[in-house]
């Protein structure tokens, strides 16, 4: 006796949270059954393995049918085929996580082009992270789908994502960061960047979106939140005089040192390193005209600023005091005219650096 066909269809679509998670995690039906058995469900309910198998199959089939709708969540709200109470719909999309992603996974693909080539690397990522290939694919496809939909849209990136994928504010911000990184192809995979978490990058992305993109100036352009403001990047070259002009550099240093004397535990190290650090920060700005250098932004920041400070054991608070003073002092440099530009650059960079400065 073999079961040829075995289905259960409810007027209200039954969704088992645990099975849904197993499905999202990419387990096969037999693996999912094994995991459920291990969870002790048979003992709790007195069910047999065959019942569990049938139940799991059934749920998987339902999820498979739902998946098409989950690709465009607003459709899930309007569709008529599955009667799912609104509260549950939200759970499906977000809290139980069709659009949730693994930190380990996102770190692997963050800043990479969301293309077929990357998709081919998913095998390696799966092996490396221990996340099932299926789950990797879902997460990757989610990134790609969101990217495609919002890439060329007007208006706030976060709002667009929220509207088209019905995600919470928090998750929409994360996706915005992913889209932003993918679009600008920031390098995040280098060894020296490994210590950084997705949260660190997402934080930076948000600051950059707010201050460095087209949308920061004009809210009526296409791609406003995704592309960096090219003009701004071009202008950043002007900052170079801060390090190229020796007088200006000396003046800047003396202003900072005067202000921080006695307040910094690592004052002497700072004093000794000031010119190097300042050159690093300004040169990063000046290089941003080239796409290649934009991609290396985080590598540069870590190399030129985070690592030197760290090797001198600067406490975070000293870094903060230094960066504040470093940014503010420029206003007192009479010969320097690009105050607004400096603020737009340094305001964001300061936030990013503070976030990036940890072990």
């Amino acid at each position, binding site marked *: 006796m*073999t079961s*040829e066909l*075995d*289905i259960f269809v409810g007027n209200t679509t039954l969704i088992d949270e645990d099975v849904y998670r197993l499905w999202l995690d990419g387990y096969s039906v037999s693996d999912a059954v094994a995991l459920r058995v291990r969870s002790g469900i048979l003992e709790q309910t007195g069910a047999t393995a065959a019942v569990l198998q049938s139940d799991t199959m059934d749920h998987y089939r339902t999820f498979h049918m739902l998946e098409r709708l989950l690709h465009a969540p607003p459709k899930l709200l309007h569709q008529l085929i599955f009667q799912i109470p*609104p509260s549950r719909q939200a759970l499906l999309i977000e809290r139980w996580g069709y659009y949730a992603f693994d930190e380990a996974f996102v770190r692997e693909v963050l800043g990479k082009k969301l293309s077929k080539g990357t998709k081919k690397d998913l095998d390696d990522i799966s092996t490396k992270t221990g996340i099932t290939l299926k789950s990797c694919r879902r997460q990757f496809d989610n990134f790609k789908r969101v990217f495609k939909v919002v890439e060329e849209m007007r208006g706030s990136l976060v709002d667009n994502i929220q509207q088209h994928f019905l995600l919470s504010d928090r998750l929409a911000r994360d996706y915005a960061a992913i889209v932003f990184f993918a679009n600008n192809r920031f390098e995040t995979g280098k060894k020296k960047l490994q210590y950084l978490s997705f949260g660190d990058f997402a934080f930076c992305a948000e600051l950059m979106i707010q201050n460095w993109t087209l949308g920061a100036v004009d809210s009526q352009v296409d791609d406003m939140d995704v592309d960096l403001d090219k003009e701004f990047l071009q202008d950043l070259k002007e900052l170079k005089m801060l390090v190229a002009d020796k007088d200006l550099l000396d003046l800047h240093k003396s202003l900072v040192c005067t202000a921080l004397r006695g307040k910094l535990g690592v004052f002497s190290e700072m004093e000794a390193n000031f010119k190097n650090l300042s050159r690093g920060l300004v040169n990063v700005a000046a290089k941003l005209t080239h796409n290649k250098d934009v991609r290396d932004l985080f590598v540069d920041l870590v190399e030129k600023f985070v690592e030197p400070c760290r090797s001198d054991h600067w406490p975070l608070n000293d870094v903060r005091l230094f960066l504040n003073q470093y940014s503010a002092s420029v206003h007192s440099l009479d010969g320097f005219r690009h105050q607004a530009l400096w603020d737009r650059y340094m305001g964001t960079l300061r936030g990013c650096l503070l976030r990036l400065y940890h072990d």
Partner: protein
Amino acid sequence: MPGKLKVKIVAGRHLPVMDRASDLTDAFVEVKFGNTTFKTDVYLKSLNPQWNSEWFKFEVDDEDLQDEPLQITVLDHDTYSANDAIGKVYIDIDPLLYSEAATVISGWFPIYDTIHGIRGEINVVVKVDLFNDLNRFRQSSCGVKFFCTTSIPKCYRAVIIHGFVEELVVNEDPEYQWIDRIRTPRASNEARQRLISLMSGELQRKIGLKVLEMRGNAVVGYLQCFDLEGESGLVVRAIGTACTLDKLSSPAAFLPACNSPSKEMKESPLVHPPSHGCRSTHNSPIHTATGSRLTQNFSVSVPTLIYTGMGSGSAGKEGGPFKALLRQQTQSALEQREFPFFTLTAFPPGFLVHVGGVVSARSVKLLDRIHNPDEPETRDAWWAEIRQEIKSHAKALGCHAVVGYSESTSICEEVCILSASGTAAVLNPRFLQDGTVEGCLEQRLEENLPAGCGFCHIPYDELNMPFPAHLTYCYNCRKQKVPDVLFTTIDLPIDATVIGKGCLIQARLCRLKKKAQAEANATAISNLLPFMEYEVHTQLMNKLKLKGMNALFGLRIQITVGENMLMGLASATGVYLAALPTPGGIQIAGKTPNDGSYEQHISHMQKKINDTIAKNKELYEINPPEVSEEIIGSPIPEPRQRSRLLRSQSESSDEVTELDLSHGKKDAFVLEIDDTDAMEDVHSLLTDVPPPSGFYSCNTEIMPGINNWTSEIQMFTSVRVIRLSSLNLTNQALNKNFNDLCENLLKSLYFKLRSMIPCCLCHVNFTVSLPEDELIQVTVTAVAITFDKNQALQTTKTHVEKSLQRASTDNEELLQFPLELCSDSLPSHPFPPAKEHLESASSNSGIPAAQRDRCSSWIELIKLKAQTIRRGSIKTTVTVEKASPMGEGNFRNRSAPPCANSTVGVVKMTPLSFIPGAKITKYLGIINMFFIRETTSLREEGGVSGFLHAFIAEVFAMVRAHVAALGGNAVVSYIMKQCVFMENPNKNQAQCLINVSGDAVVFVRESELEVVSTQQPTANCQPSCTGGEVTT
């Protein structure tokens, strides 16, 4: 031109991409009714077109309005080649034809294609202007209301219940026409869908005509079925119960606008059908005389069993002049009818006087296409034959009517088994004719019929019993005779006194049959049938006793015929009726008593059986007030105990002793296990596992013993198909496979629904079919309803209070089935706690327990009556709320405001006639839909399971969409009448036909009732308003 149909196409959404190049679609819509077609403009390059068309107007006969569906086709415009069809929507406009139902159909409908399934949605508005001169159009029966519900619908009152109406229509099946060889599967499927839609429209209209002729205005318990006879054709047949219904105008819901049309209808056009009323319908689109005619060239009628277990009688003898009068009146009322049958399963209080037992008839026919069109209609003759048989069975039981009547067929190739079954009964005449004599008769009736046990009393003559039965005096009233076991096809009467809870009982059986042709095959089948009936009956009886119960309700026996086997599946709900004697146990007797080990085995089995009975009694809380411990201790009462029992009985009557002795002897049900077969039976008895704790199941509307339903319901359909390995095809192996299939299916359901515990599966409906040689398909539809465990532990006091309120409601609403009666506890509950209390208090007195018990219940009853009269002025709505099984506060917590933030309103579906915790305020019309789905890419769609899963989900979606468009928020009495699944995995193909029906309704949560009642006029007058809310 008595009617104008107006259609507006508003918009589409989620359309499929039809043009790969642009990833878009150029969609337009064709609107077709009868032979007229309109088209919208092409809306270029969009998947969400906004047509916003003008009103398309069709001027049509009301006859066409009834028969024809509105057909909406969405197409993709193609400049260079033929336009591609995206899909279709069929809309049955019948609900718009009677004034109390929907006034507009408006909403999003899934666009359905028989090959691709649902492909987007379309927003349509449909209205009908009916011209007022209904009188002249006798071919149509506009205005007759149809209900699938097998009881008097909640917001109506039955003035007269006229009786049985039936009709059938035949046609050639398009799938088997020559043209099918050259047309596409899609065209063939659509031809079939359309034809069946037409035929059901015609059938409904014809039934309506018969109702008008009987001077009724509604059909209740309407059941329409299709027989796919293959080569020989397609039969659509329907049965129902004609009634004259009056809309209840409870003060809160009073609504002049809605009431007047119904009155008009009752008084003027409908009551006086013109003499030329029922001519044959020569201008009907489906002519019954054209096309193929069907006839038999071979027929076997199968002698059928009449189930034992009937009521006690007494009637003619001691009843005196009153009874005679009653009998006379009823008979005269019923004898006018050809078939005094009623498809109802639940009745207004007082309607059912006595129940005789189950009557059934089957007959095996050979289907054959006949080429002589003048041959008389044979299908009609076949059914008439069977109905005659049923009628005579009922007569043999001393009954003049059959209730809970249903008909079914099973077809395999050219063999067809026709089955009919029902419950023989004696009815109260006052509902069957104009209620002029009501007054005094009613009064007397109530004096004579003790509530809660009257229906159990045997209707036939005790001295002239139609079959051997063991009669005792009724355990409730002690006045009349009752049988030891009672089998019925109806729901548990609301006033029945039940002890404990009920449970689903199934008998399952397979019999192998040699493959044969034509007559030989039919003969083989008809030879097997009586044995199957007998075995099914025995199994039911055994299982019933094993549960410690004494009555079956909702009994449905399905015999399915396949190429090489017959399957029997009987489902029923077992209960313990307080009026019937305690069932005896089961005793096992072996044939070779000298074999030591064998005997040991026997006694081991016996012990197991006894343990099971004891366990079941505990599980289902069956604690009859008397002699319960003794019975539990040993299934065969010892003589001493028995005699004690007898003494207590003999006090009420002298003549009982003898009869009761015999009853005592037979009390133990002896099972002889003289061969392996019987051994199997005993084993199978013991392998049925009870549902896990927190679960109950029944196949009736409500579960006796559970009265505190919460509002959470989940209707579902589950389908399983197993393939038998052809190697081990023996009867035993078959039986085991089939049994496992059903048991596993139930286990799966319990597991799936575990989050709803405590809950009850109600109206569990199993259907078996044998699509191929080695395939068995079981389809189950049921509803899971949660209940509140804490509230079950209510004090005796509140029980009594409740019952008082209930009684007052009864009085108030007389013929209506008040909602709380169905959702409330069955009347047993007021009594048992009270009894126990009394018993313990007076345990030292000399009065035997039984006697005391009887007295107390009588006293209660009289008190109730008194209360009823005093409380006569209580408003209906108030009582409904107070008597609601759920605390109000509880309600508020649970019921979230419907569709608060969702875009698609929730539509509930349930096979029951009510929605727990809610009041049905309006019936919008019948939903009767037929769909075909076919695929040529089975593997790609997820195999057979994926294919059928998606299809059933789509069917649910289409039903919900239609209900929402009518302005409703639920379907009650939902039933999946057919689910025919065929596959050909080698060709990667599958096809499935599904037929569903139900009543679209508007319900209001009881918690919201107060709010609504203040706004009643708006809510009631403008159903479109409600609809709008639901569909926004």
